[in-house]
């Protein structure tokens, strides 16, 4: 049986832990709000660029661009977005598991290459000696587009320079605060553009011409997809961490309750014993 002091020690250390986890929960809540806002302010840009790209790409079907056409897949690129830190429940492991599932479909390491974003993805790939094209760690919690631009351009260039023939992004999609879903999204080639919304049957004039515009527009579009995925993943990360820390805090509370109960019982037992000893001693004197 643990002594009174042991239990007291455990209560105190659990209380300290609870302080940390609840602080982390609050920090994550604040960051989640900002991340959600970022994701929201990105939406207009994304919608607009999507609309224009779709209307050009589906308007006249003689618009032919290497980024729009699928080619034989010899090598696949995977953009894996994880966090730099753990303590976010299954956030990182879900993504990495999905990556592993995908990679196991390939016969050899020459058939794929990984673009690792976040410390967790980097370590994962290093440990397994996977071929890595780029690795990025330490992305800000509120990334600007300028921070991501270089990475996005590099990723798109992998496809443009025909180093890879298709690129997938694997990341946590933010559905709600309590649910983040691992998503695998095809980044390139852009095949699912005409999503059937012909509401704006606008026939544009193109200056100078369609082809040149696609040359400028498509890389920008692909880059903004990468940026969007990172924003999405950041929001999910904070939500996941918030939930994980909330659970940890709740568990700590339960544990403290249990321990306090045991502590009080033991203390009461000790007092009762003391009293009965005194009473016993006194009655022996009479």
């Amino acid at each position, binding site marked *: 049986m643990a002594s009174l002091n042991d239990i007291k020690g455990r209560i105190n250390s659990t209380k300290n832990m609870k302080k940390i986890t609840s602080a982390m929960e609050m920090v994550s809540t604040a960051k989640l709000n900002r991340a959600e806002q970022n994701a929201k302010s990105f939406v207009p840009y994304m919608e607009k*660029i999507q609309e224009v790209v779709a209307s050009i790409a589906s308007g006249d079907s003689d618009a032919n661009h290497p980024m729009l056409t699928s080619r034989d897949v010899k090598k696949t690129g995977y953009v894996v977005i994880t966090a730099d830190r753990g303590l976010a429940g299954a956030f990182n492991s879900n993504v990495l598991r999905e990556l592993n599932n995908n990679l196991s479909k390939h016969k050899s390491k020459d058939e794929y290459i990984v673009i690792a974003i976040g410390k967790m993805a980097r370590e994962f790939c290093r440990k397994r000696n996977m071929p890595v094209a780029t690795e990025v760690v330490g992305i800000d919690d509120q990334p600007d587009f300028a921070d991501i631009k270089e990475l996005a351009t590099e990723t798109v260039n992998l496809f443009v320079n025909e180093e890879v023939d298709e690129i997938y992004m694997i990341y946590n999609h933010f559905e709600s605060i309590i649910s983040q879903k691992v998503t695998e999204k095809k980044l390139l080639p852009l095949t699912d553009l005409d999503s059937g919304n012909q509401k704006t049957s606008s026939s544009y004039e193109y200056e100078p011409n369609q082809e040149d515009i696609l040359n400028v527009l498509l890389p920008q579009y692909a880059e903004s997809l990468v940026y969007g995925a990172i924003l999405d993943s950041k929001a999910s990360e904070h939500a996941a961490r918030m939930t994980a820390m909330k659970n940890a805090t709740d568990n700590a509370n339960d544990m403290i309750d249990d321990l306090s109960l045991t502590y009080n019982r033991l203390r009461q037992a000790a007092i009762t014993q003391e009293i009965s000893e005194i009473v016993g001693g006194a009655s022996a004197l009479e």
Partner: protein
Amino acid sequence: MKTVTVSVVTPDGPVLENAYEMVSCKAENGELGILPGHIPLVAPLTISSVRLKKEGDEDELAVSGGFLEVRPDNVTILAQSAEKPGDIDVERARKAKERAERRLQSKQDDIDFKRAQLALQRAVNRLDIAGTK
């Protein structure tokens, strides 16, 4: 005067939305002036300034990596970055300019050269626009 609604949108959020009488900007093929009632048009913009005119006033924006979408009653400028003169970080632009110039002088392979050129253009553009205010 008739006006046209201009909205400037970047990945970091909307920058500006307002009614203007005229938009003038620099597309890849040269200067473009857009008045209200223009036919639908899409054109990529160079790293340059966009000037928006209203009642004798003129607003200016530094854009890079952008393109212009015109409809008869509204104009949308989508850019990877767009800043008002007051929002430009002059110190940072100046440093970026120096860095780019250094890189251009030490001749390296092709891609770096191109990147440095673009960086220089962006920095010079920002400094120009910040200076005119």
